[in-house]
């Protein structure tokens, strides 16, 4: 299978506020299969999907892309993922912690 690339960067930069539940969002991220391409910590997967967190792109951009993806990502319509669920997932993405700096990871400096 060829590389799945999702180009969130090309989407709108206008943000909406999300007021979701991050704990529930993590569960939904797993249950709805987001982890399959983006990793269980939203770190991204080589050849499958980009990193989504920490510091996700604006909620409105995520929402728009998920409903009507222009790349390889399968669509998540409102019929299967409600706006409320999406807000929870986004809250999870916002909650992902920043990793240590590369310079502080000896194995990445070999």
């Amino acid at each position, binding site marked *: 299978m060829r590389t799945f690339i999702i180009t969130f960067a090309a989407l709108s930069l206008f943000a909406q506020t999300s007021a979701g539940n991050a704990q529930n969002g993590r569960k939904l991220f797993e*249950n709805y299969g987001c982890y*399959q391409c983006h990793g269980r910590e939203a770190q991204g997967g080589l050849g499958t999907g980009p990193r989504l967190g920490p510091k996700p792109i604006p909620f409105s951009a995520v929402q728009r892309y998920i409903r009507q*993806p222009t790349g390889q990502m399968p669509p998540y319509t409102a019929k299967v993922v409600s706006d409320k669920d999406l807000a929870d997932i986004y809250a999870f993405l916002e909650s992902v912690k920043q990793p240590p700096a590369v310079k502080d990871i000896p*194995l990445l400096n070999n």
Partner: protein
Amino acid sequence: MAASRKPSLGRRNFIKGTVGGAAALAAASTPAPAQQEQAARSASAAVVTQERDPSPSVEVLTADHPGSDFMIDVLKALGFEYVFANPGSSFRGLHESLVNYGGNKNPEFITCCHEESSVAMAHGYAKIEGKPACVFAHGTVGLQHASMAIYNAYVDRAPVFMIIGNTIDAATRRPGVEWAHSVQDAAVLVRDFTKWDDMPLSLQHFAESAVRAYKIATTPPNMPVLLVADGDLQETPMRSGERPHLPKITLASPPQGDSGAVAEAARLLVAAENPVIVADRCARTPAGLKLLVELAETLQAPVINQFGRMNFPSAHPLNQTERSRALISSADVILGLEVWDFWGTVHSFRDQLQRTSQPMIKSGTKLISISATDLNTKSNYQDFQRFPDLDLSMAADSEATLPALIEACRRLLTADRKSAFEQRAKKLDQARHAARERMRVEASYAWDASPISTARLAMEVWAQIKDKDWSLVSSNAWAQRLWTFDKHYQHIGGSGGAGVGYGAPAALGAAVANKKYARLSVSIQNDGDLMYAPGVLWTSAHHGVPLLSVMHNNRAYHQEVMHLQRMANRHQRGINTAEIGTTIKNPNIDYAAMARSMGVHGEGPITDANDLAPALKRALEAVSRGEPALVDVVTQPR
């Protein structure tokens, strides 16, 4: 294929009088490799037999030199080091001759637990050693088991030399199972994805066909070949004076590109502002890697390594694999070297309800292909990919064509072009550094996660092996990005046909080849792949093959998880059911325990990244003693 054969004595009505003749032949004929060791002993044994029972009417129950002995002489002459096989009665004569007459050395019988493993091991061996190994299998049930692995080797253009047993003469078959294990045209099952096959009807025929098959398998495009060894031919003693001629073994030089086409390719490449070299199954031998470096440096052109072979050093400034898409998009000339999917290399494809594609290249970009695959394309299986719009196509072996292409490029170099090349090289180097830095940053995300991130897994392994003489005998995306590859044996490429179940046996076959060089063989082993034929673990322990297998255990056939998710989303239903039928959980498999049960050092399951380094060190201690070891690591999906 014609079934007639010249009159000869069948093994069941063969009587004693010929035994002495066969033995005398062994003593008198030109010594063959193993016959030299056996001749005197065989002759004296036959004399004793004659003296003990001179009556011609007594049934002869023993024989000194079956045809299979000569077959082993042929295999020895061809230089086979190993025969990978699961035992089977249809080649019992060959098997016995190999271990007794041949001394089970050059070739040595490697006991496999499944014929698919046998072939995949030979496939992995060929990727390291650059020459085929031999595989024995039943002509029916064994070949059916083996067929998927043969297809992988075919698509990967890798040589495998198969010999399958069969009992052609229906009048001599044992009742029952031997009928189920006999077939009119054994090779037809895999003829669509082998390069050549034959069913020799005499030992002379066998000798010529074996040499022919070897030559065909090793002439690019390399592919599997198959001989059918008839049971009667194996088991019937050679007749008095019978000494088949072994043809001179002269392999074909690989086909080189037409000189005019090479000159035109050089003209396009030297004149290009943004040339790109894409290498897939290019480096057949260690020389291929060096030649590609030479070409890239001559042109100061970026190289995209598609990892079908170990084509190009990963740390070379012109290795721009991470920038593949950007480079393809801006290229004015693209040179493809044994590129399996040229169309897919220059197009994007979108797998939505309406499948769409679009070119990634600019209008007017010149596409040059050098590929031996063009010399041998079959129709049924569609591995040839979509037809690309090439501007120049050489049906030739890339590696063999590189010296002429390099020379042709050098002849066209001017001071102006050299200056332009130097400027290009500086920009490429800067872009490469930036891409590598981005990759290291990406690797840092989820660094401490549990399940363990695949980047962390790769770098923990790298830390333990980087100062050793290592060979990665599997594929792994993070290793390909972050490890330093600079030797031809440090990567064996992919499976070819993407048939799951290749990884574990191919890694073991490659490790068998690496053993005599005392290289550290390392495999990052997918869980779903290992479960196809986990008996390879036993084979590795039984034969004492040092191999470190580190499980990338995501507890799923993960590609299929994603495919099912795509279907559910497309149909707007059940988006939480993609793990049904696609995961390997409940119960979770204890791979370390499974390894230990088969005599392999086992560690894990490891879920905390901090436990990984100590486990790897313990496993490497076992490997340093010449043993296989497995470390089970529970990982992120990809």
